[in-house]
């Protein structure tokens, strides 16, 4: 799957969680991440990279991501991205 079939979401906006929304994008537009986070200054780049790495790992090339972070650790971010991807591919 290099392209999303449909829009999908996973996660919540509760403390320590992250809400990931994925939207299909045109071919060759790449992975675009929009992130809201209370730790944007310190960890924004890390969170964005992790989201992108997880998507690339699952073979995604073009997608629009909106992420609302509430202090999620890496394991939570990966799990939420994966769940959103599975839901998008159903």
């Amino acid at each position, binding site marked *: 799957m290099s392209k999303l079939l449909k829009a999908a979401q996973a996660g919540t906006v*509760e403390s320590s969680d992250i809400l990931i929304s994925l939207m299909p994008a045109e071919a060759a537009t790449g992975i675009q991440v929009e992130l809201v986070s209370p730790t944007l200054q310190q960890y924004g780049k890390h969170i964005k990279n992790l989201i992108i790495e997880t998507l690339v790992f699952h073979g995604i090339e073009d997608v629009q991501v909106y992420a609302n972070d509430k202090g999620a650790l890496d394991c939570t971010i990966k799990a939420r991205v994966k*769940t959103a991807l599975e839901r998008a591919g159903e």
Partner: protein
Amino acid sequence: MEKLRRSMMFVPGNNPGMLLNAGIYGADTIILDCEDAVAITEKDSARNLVFQAISELNYGTEVAVRINHISTPFGWDDLKRVLPAKPDLIRLPMAQGPEEIRQIDEFISEAEEKNKFPAGSIKMMAAVETPKGLRFAYEIAAASPRMVALAIGAEDFIANLKTTRSKLGRELLAARGQLVLAAREAGIQCIDTVFSDINDEEGFKRELELIKEMGFDGKSVVNPRQVSVVHDFFAPTAKEMDHAERVLAAYQEALEKKSGVISLNGKMIDLPIVARAERTLAYAKAAAGKGGK
């Protein structure tokens, strides 16, 4: 001494905050829950989060996963996703008979082989929550060498009995008794149900006293506050330890003197009493963090 399972603490599998902190309360086992604590629309989220948590966090204690029953649309998917993270223990709810235990055992064996885990390293336990499950309790307990414990799930059981839960727990007496017998016959541990009224500490202690007397090895808990209360209850008292030490000393002395009859303070000591004293001391040692497996 077998692994201590005095407290088995449930942690909702789809709550990142609770999953992150689950290891800090000192529970002997934490149970990451994909079943009742997870909304039906979030089963996929929970199993992904539980997989990632076990893979990346170091809990420093035994980690179990309560899967959904394999007769639901979620049970096999739970197993498929979480087994590659190598949980220590799989807890099956609503166990009804030995066949499902064997099916899961086989599935775990395949996952162990595929992921190059040592064969038999992932253990199992099952919760009995129906009269039918209770009737097959021994068969369930003995269905696989992976089985380390039986547990009772009271809420569903009592609903099935068409009664209600009382302070004295008389409605569960028969089930608890039969479950301990089945677990002991199979040579595995027996874990009591949760006590969900967090604010009723008196009631909680009364229930702990009852289950300890009945022979249970531990209790499922739903709140971290309950963990230390359970551990205190299961720890041998100073008096019990002192007695156990004196029993073993008297036994040793009798062995050296080749004396056939052993007595301590005028009371005869026989082998079951010696075995109990040994268990008391081994338990205290394990509980003091000097071992346990």
